[in-house]
């Protein structure tokens, strides 16, 4: 990728260099096949990625990049098993919850040099806040290609039919708070449809509940990760509110209930904006996109991140790093931004996003995406996350019962994970 201002002559020389290098590599240049594991099997996403791979191939004809989707729920396990099995991919997407494990283990190739050296890359415009989780000792080990704020998708048809206030109306009145959101959800649920669905949570992936409990200022552990805060007042209050919404008000579908917002079966759903690709193309229902409701601590935002890392165990890590630099340069970042909001400052405005994002209105983009990324906290993570996640998950099962003693359950959780956190 050459900067527009580069004189034509320099471009020609550089192009010639690339060409001669390629020729020098041998008349029968070795076909380099790179593989990147991802967790999205969405066709629109794949089309975009393959398009970017084609662009890379134009400048590097012997490099073919393929994308391998692994199932979302078991992604990290499957990836680590591939690595353990000697079948590691060249590049991999990494969940923000697994970031610390991968970055600190030495399994990833440091990327700072390659990214900074790529012409026109402008590594500096990515904020330290966005890269905090993906760096160690000032070196970047995985690029946060997606900083995706959580927002509320709304089905206005169902809400109006139930005679409740739509989020847009509540926002206009300055009353878009959690109690009101639940009231609206409850009204719809009484009519037989689903109320509010925290997507991907499914009573197993509790880290997604942070989109709710951050409104109370709650967190599973302290900022330095050393102390368990499940049993602290903010978390207990938040869980009590959620429990009430599930079992008393029935505003949130209970354990084992499968309700899909995008099939038109729920009033609202909290999820990342990349899920916008799941909206029915035929405008089956009148939908809206709004920020998260106000919690007891006021307005708040939460983001999920996804990083791309290059694995040390791959045979062509230098080429892979070059591809990552290409895929996340300013031009391609703008294309990715329609599904995966970029952390680049220059791309963080509504006009840029609107150009490539046909589904969302500029107002929606501004209110939800731009401010979400600017102010949002990243989802909770920790080293050894898989084990902590499982322990907290089984402890939380005691909370997802009709009769639950929440303080006791959270104390039990801290009893279990406390010792592990302190390590």
């Amino acid at each position, binding site marked *: 990728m050459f900067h527009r201002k580069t004189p034509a002559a320099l471009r020609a020389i550089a192009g010639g260099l690339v060409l001669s290098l390629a020729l020098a590599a041998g008349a029968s240049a070795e076909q380099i096949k790179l593989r990147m594991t991802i967790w999205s099997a969405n066709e629109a996403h794949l089309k975009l990625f393959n398009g970017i791979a084609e662009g890379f191939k134009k400048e590097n004809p012997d490099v073919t990049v393929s994308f391998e989707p692994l199932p979302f729920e078991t992604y990290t396990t499957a990836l680590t098993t591939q*690595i353990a099995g000697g079948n590691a991919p060249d590049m991999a997407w990494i969940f923000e919850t697994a970031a610390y494990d991968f970055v600190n283990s030495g399994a990833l190739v440091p990327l700072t040099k390659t990214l900074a050296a790529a012409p026109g890359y402008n590594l500096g415009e990515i904020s330290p806040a966005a890269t905090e989780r993906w760096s160690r000792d000032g070196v970047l080990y995985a690029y946060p290609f997606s900083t995706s704020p959580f927002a509320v998708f709304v089905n206005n048809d169902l809400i109006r039919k139930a005679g409740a206030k739509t989020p847009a109306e509540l926002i206009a009145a300055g009353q878009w708070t959690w109690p009101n959101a639940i009231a609206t959800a409850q009204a719809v649920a009484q009519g037989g449809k689903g109320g509010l669905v925290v997507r991907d949570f499914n*009573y197993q992936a509790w880290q997604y509940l942070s989109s709710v409990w951050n409104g109370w200022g709650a967190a599973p552990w302290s900022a330095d990760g050393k102390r368990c805060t499940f049993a602290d007042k903010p978390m207990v209050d938040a869980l009590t509110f959620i429990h009430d919404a599930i079992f008393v008000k029935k505003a949130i579908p209970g354990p084992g209930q499968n309700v899909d917002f995008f099939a038109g079966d729920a009033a609202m759903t909290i999820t990342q904006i990349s899920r916008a690709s799941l909206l029915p193309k035929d405008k089956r229902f009148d939908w809206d996109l709004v920020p998260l409701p106000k919690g007891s601590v006021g307005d708040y935002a939460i983001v999920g991140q996804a990083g791309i890392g290059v694995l040390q165990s791959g045979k062509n890590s230098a080429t892979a790093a070059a591809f990552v630099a290409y895929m996340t340069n300013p031009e391609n970042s703008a294309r990715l931004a329609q599904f995966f909001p970029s952390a680049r400052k220059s791309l963080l405005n509504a006009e840029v996003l609107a150009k490539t994002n046909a589904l969302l209105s500029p107002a929606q983009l501004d209110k939800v995406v731009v401010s979400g990324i600017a102010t949002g906290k990243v989802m909770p993570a920790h080293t050894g996350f898989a084990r902590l996640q499982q322990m907290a998950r*089984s402890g939380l099962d005691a909370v*997802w019962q009709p009769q639950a003693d929440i303080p006791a359950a959270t104390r039990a959780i801290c009893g*279990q994970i406390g010792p592990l956190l302190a390590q």
Partner: protein
Amino acid sequence: MTRTPDDPARGPPPDAPRAFWTMARRDSLAGFLFAAPQLAGTLVFVLVPLGLVFWYSLHEWNVLANTFNYTGSLNYEQLLGDPSLPGVLLASALFSAGLVVLNMSLALLLAVLLNQKLAGIAVFRTLFFSPVVVSLVAWTIVWGFLLQHNGGINGVLRLLGIEGPNWLRTPGTAMLSVIVVQVFKNVGLNMVLFLAALQGVPRELYEAARIDGAPRFKQFRRITLPLISPTILLTSIITVVGSLQVFAQIAVLTQGGPGVSTTVLVYYLYQQTFQFHRFGYGSTLAIVLFAIVALLTLAQWQMRRRFVFHEQ
């Protein structure tokens, strides 16, 4: 090679040169060769891995960091101090006990019922056996689906006016559900074995007892049970050992939850090894599992002296 004499029973004549490849030796060689694949396989795929498992349990193996460090008995100490372990062992015990009792009694009941000369009994036999041949994961997925809070089973119960529990998400019923799913899948096998055993009991014994005026239940207790006791013992060993290996059902239905109520030892092993990537600790759990299986089988085998009827 010298030829063997005509009558192998007599052995080579005293003055003839001693042949190396006697009939007996050739037979022994044949024996080894016949058993060789199985023996080699046992060595490579059973004994060596078992030894290696013990070896791993003495190490800490981090996959991402690619380290493999000797830690001695550290994993075993962790095992003794593992707060989850008693719960896991209890879950395993409950599961195995529940499964064996339910499975064996249902199999025996079905075998007795099907051992009648009724028209179309073979059709029933086929239908009861059919779940055995359905794919395990398919069977589990369908049941998982029926056991949803708003699934088929609760739907039927609601028609009868009963509000069913959230089968898979409530601690007590989750374990019961997993047991029941497994029982209905495999009971057909034990049913067929019991049926064959029942049909091997000589009719005359029942006739004689009837003439003596013994009631049916006494006939069952005094004649049937003792004579099929070898089958009962063998099937119970197989069922117990099988119950300790149940993995797919739990992985698909409950993922060890709610809480850790359905985390049996085998599933806990899988979690530690493949989800948390603690291969060293997982190997320690594997040794524990092996020890439990060996002990239980030995105990059951010893019981045969007391409970199994020997026709001497």
